[in-house]
């Protein structure tokens, strides 16, 4: 493991639908470690992953992956770079016209010339590691949400990428597969020296595997550090989030006018629904 950052985010600004999502984000994500990006819902954690993956373009600022500026690459070079990344989508995003086996085999088939028996072995190995070797003949429609995500994980690591982006990997997992998944992410990272970015708000699980944590809120990094240092962080916003307290400086409600006057406000007078 080295401490040279594999992914660098410099002064990232991004606006979407008239709303400022990021107002100057800086991050350095070291090679071969698990970095967690946490924050309340709606802070744009998934958006950040899409910016790293080059699917969205920032208003200003840069994202460097292994020294390459993601948003200045040509379409071809960007797709070349993406072969070195894996991304686990929240929904799984499996190809609905292919069965489980073919979904995992897809990256191998399109990017390698491996003979069929070797592809079969590799796919079964990846499926075994997520516990779904027996489900190889099922179609994505026959899988539960949690199972689909595990198949998607097997697909994301099929080409043994150098960087893997996890979007909410723990949502909707039962306690057993949750434990397996946590262990799997840790093992993948250690055995393959994989650089991992985990976006999540499952505090306990994420803090248990992360080497370094960034906490974002309100478009900015509000805290960063090792899981231990965050646990005893002085900022009340940080401790509210880390300890999951409902009351504190971070509001539970989406910005809205005063509740009392909103209720009393005549709906028709204010022009209907809002």
């Amino acid at each position, binding site marked *: 493991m080295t401490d040279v950052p594999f992914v660098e985010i410099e002064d990232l600004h991004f606006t979407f639908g008239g709303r400022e999502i990021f107002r100057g984000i800086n991050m350095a994500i070291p090679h071969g470690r698990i970095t967690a990006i946490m924050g309340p819902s709606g802070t744009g954690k998934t958006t950040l992953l899409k910016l790293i993956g080059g699917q969205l373009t920032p208003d200003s600022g840069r994202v460097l992956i292994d020294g390459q500026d993601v948003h200045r690459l040509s379409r071809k070079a960007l797709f070349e770079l993406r072969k070195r990344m894996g991304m686990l989508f929240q929904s799984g995003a499996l190809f609905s016209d292919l069965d489980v086996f073919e979904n995992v085999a897809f990256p191998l088939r*399109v990017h390698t010339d491996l003979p069929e028996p070797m592809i079969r072995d590799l796919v079964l190995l990846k499926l075994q590691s997520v516990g779904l070797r027996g489900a190889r003949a099922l179609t994505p429609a026959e899988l539960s949400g949690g199972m689909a995500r595990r198949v998607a994980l097997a*697909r994301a690591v099929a080409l043994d990428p150098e960087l893997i982006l996890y979007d909410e990997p723990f949502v909707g997992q039962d306690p057993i597969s949750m434990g397996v998944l946590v262990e799997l992410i840790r093992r993948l990272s250690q055995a393959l020296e994989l650089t991992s970015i985990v976006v999540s708000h499952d505090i306990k699980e994420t803090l248990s595997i992360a080497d370094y944590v960034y906490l974002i809120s309100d478009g900015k990094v509000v805290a960063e550090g090792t899981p231990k240092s965050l646990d005893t962080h002085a900022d009340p916003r940080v401790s509210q989030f880390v300890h999951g307290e409902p009351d504190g400086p971070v509001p539970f409600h989406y910005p809205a006018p005063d509740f009392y006057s909103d209720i009393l406000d005549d709906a028709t007078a204010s022009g209907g629904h809002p």
Partner: protein
Amino acid sequence: MTKGIESLARWGRKGCDSFESLGRAGIFLAQSAVAVPSREGLRLWLHQIYFVGVLSLAIVLVSGLFIGMVLALQGYTILVDFGAEQALGQMVALSLLRELAPVVAALLFAGRAGSALTAEIGLMKATEQLTSMEMIGVDPLRRIVAPRLWAGFVSLPVLTIGFSVVGIWGGYLVGVEWLGVFEGSYWSNMQASVSFLDDVGNGIIKSLVFALVVTWIAVFQGYDLVPTSEGISRATTRTVVYSSLAVLGLDFVLTVVMFGGLS
């Protein structure tokens, strides 16, 4: 006064949006049409020819048969007044080859295959399948859009030829077998008056243009839609509406260019 300016601004914005979307569609076509042929690409293309072309055969051929039969029946009732029912074959063949086959086949194709393409690609977008494909390092324009675009481009002209053939046979059934036009004059008048280059050729050129436009609209609407259930339904409707209008409008332009000089 300000109201007038506001509505003017709204129209301006709409115009800008339309041009922007036209530009996006152009770039989209350029990026997806230049797919490098490969064995895998050939397999995907054949697969799409089955879905887009072969599965549209039934509706296109049945429609062709009925349109040919109706043409013969209507044509006969008029021609017989002038004692010119021997020209029935000529009338049926020319109306089908020059106009009805390319246009009606394209309209049916837009409804049957175009809407399906839009919905399929749109649902792939809504379920993040296109994004995940991009993240695997596979360009969905090459993998998903290009085979569908080329399959549509090749399928519709073939369907149009099938439409004409079945339509002429339908005309024969009604005109010759049922109404008793002399079989020899049905075929020989057709043979004497139909020019392969001017009539068959121009009909095929028309259907190639329609094929490109309809498939392009269908895949672009699917790729560019707002990924919600409402967005998919709107885009599917737009595919059918835009394709139909484009086909009918282009048909007029092409007819003027191709047959406008004929006396």
